């Protein structure tokens, strides 16, 4: 056993003590944080420069939908 093996084994054992339910929360929480970040993006970063102001020109919609599906997937599977 080298120092690398001992370090790796310690890390592996530490990570192995984390329950999978908590890991799922970690995955989903990361996605939720990303969703919140998307929703808080300033308007000028999500609409075209000379846009008409139509709702479907706002990229927040598509981005939120993409991440929303991910949240559902990681909640269910």
């Amino acid at each position, binding site marked *: 056993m080298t120092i690398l093996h001992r370090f790796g084994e310690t890390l592996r054992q530490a990570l192995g003590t984390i329950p999978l339910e908590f890991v799922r929360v970690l995955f989903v929480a990361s996605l939720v944080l990303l969703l919140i970040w998307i929703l808080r993006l300033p308007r000028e970063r*999500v609409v075209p420069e000379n846009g008409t102001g139509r709702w479907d020109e706002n990229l927040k919609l598509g981005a939120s939908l993409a991440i929303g599906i991910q949240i559902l997937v*990681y909640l269910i599977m």
Partner: protein
Amino acid sequence: MPDAENTLSFADYVVVALYLTGTILLGLWIGRRTKTGEDFFLGGRRLPWWAIGFSLVATDIGGTDIIGVGGAAHRFGIAVANFEWIGCVPAMIVGAFVFIPFFYRTGVYTVPEFLERRYNANVRTVMAVCWLLFMACNLGLMLVASARMMSGLFGWHEWTCIIATAVLVGFYTCVGGLAAVVYTDMIQCVVMIAGCLAILFLGIVKVGGISELRSRLDAIPATAEQTPAETEDDVGNISAVEGVDARREATSLILPVDTPSPFPWPGIFFGLALILSPAYWIGNQAIVQRSLGARSEFEAKASYVWGALLKNLIPFIVAVPGLIAIVLLPDLDNSDMAIPRLVGMLFPTGLRGLFVAAFLAALMSSIDSYLNSAATIVTHDLYRRFVNPDVSPQKTLVIGRSVTSVLVLWAVAFAFLLTQMAEDSGLYTIFQTLMAFFQGPAFAILLIGVFWRGATGYAAFAGLLCGIATSITLYALNQPAIYEALGWQPLFRIADPFLYFSVWAFVVTAIVLTVVSLFGPKEDIDRSRYVFRTAFGGGAAK
């Protein structure tokens, strides 16, 4: 010998011929507008967001993925879908709103070019060479993977498949450049999705519905047989490892640390979601290049968002068929044959042509992108940077086409080398391992350089080299021939720990970059225009 179930009829050949003819004609038609280097490498910056979005997905899903992801799902369970979900979608969204508009404003052709502006020429050159090596090897891998599949399924000669694919893709890529690549990718993406949806639909019907599929997967014994792995091929196989909860492994995205598969959750979360995925979607030239060809910065962002939406669908059509194969083909011993065997079982004569077209579409859409991007790197990061900086736009086009032709020849030669090697590992794993060597270090210098003004060129170069050396060392120390010679145990417990290589390589690069930047030589050149806060706060970084 061809699989008797997979004999193609005249109607199948007609479907394949229609697809190939349509693709070539479209590529030629697009090629008429290609007059300069900018047309060839960036589509004249006239590409629409919807075509780029399709192209992003088509490029990412290659022929190796249609076989490999389905095969990995058959072997390891649905956890392989992480590569298409958390391993793609979040990074694409972050890329859309942070990195892609930033690159677009700088007006660069390649990611290594951006790295030179931010750091120095050494960093650019190392990254250009890394990407070039990766793309060039990957071209050969993709050709071999497709040829083996077509040979196994239909009895076609392996070499005929390799040469035919290389010539067809090389032809329209050479003529039309990135625009031809993007528009043909769009058609290829639709064909690919249609073919894979057909497998999914017919597979679920054959099993008896989604609930029946679920219940039959749940019927896999909760604890696999108490027989340790006896052959090398059994390592990492969920049904062959002692004490593994095979039911959970087949149907769960999140696997424990001690899973025998290559997808334990720390690897997926830290290695894939936080490092390899953003490195791929933000730093991979073959991916980023098409968004640099968008009509506007907004369309570049929109293409990534559209791609992310499409990406949500992909695991259902490429990974779930692997689960269907667990149920329908319980005695299958070679997971790479899961999807081909399903096609033979499910598709009637006449419909198999659709699958062949889908497979060819996936394959061609990846090969054309890597061809064009590799040619871009050779032309811009090597030729124009070191040989002839004042080359005219027309000459650039000639060079781009010449390099593309040479790369096609190289791909065929490398494919020949690969066909002489033993096939002792999944193709998908080989692909991932190649990227893991330098993706982590590349992402570390990109990320830190974009967000930290204090990062210096010396430090980035040192960090990059140390990071790549770390990946290669870890890989070597995990090879039986080496650790047995040293009298060691393997460093990692899981099969194919490429996700962990990238984590440690990223960490080493970040540490070296930070320490050398703080305590090493300082630079006089002001590169703050290529730092996110300065650039977005003070206008475009031209």
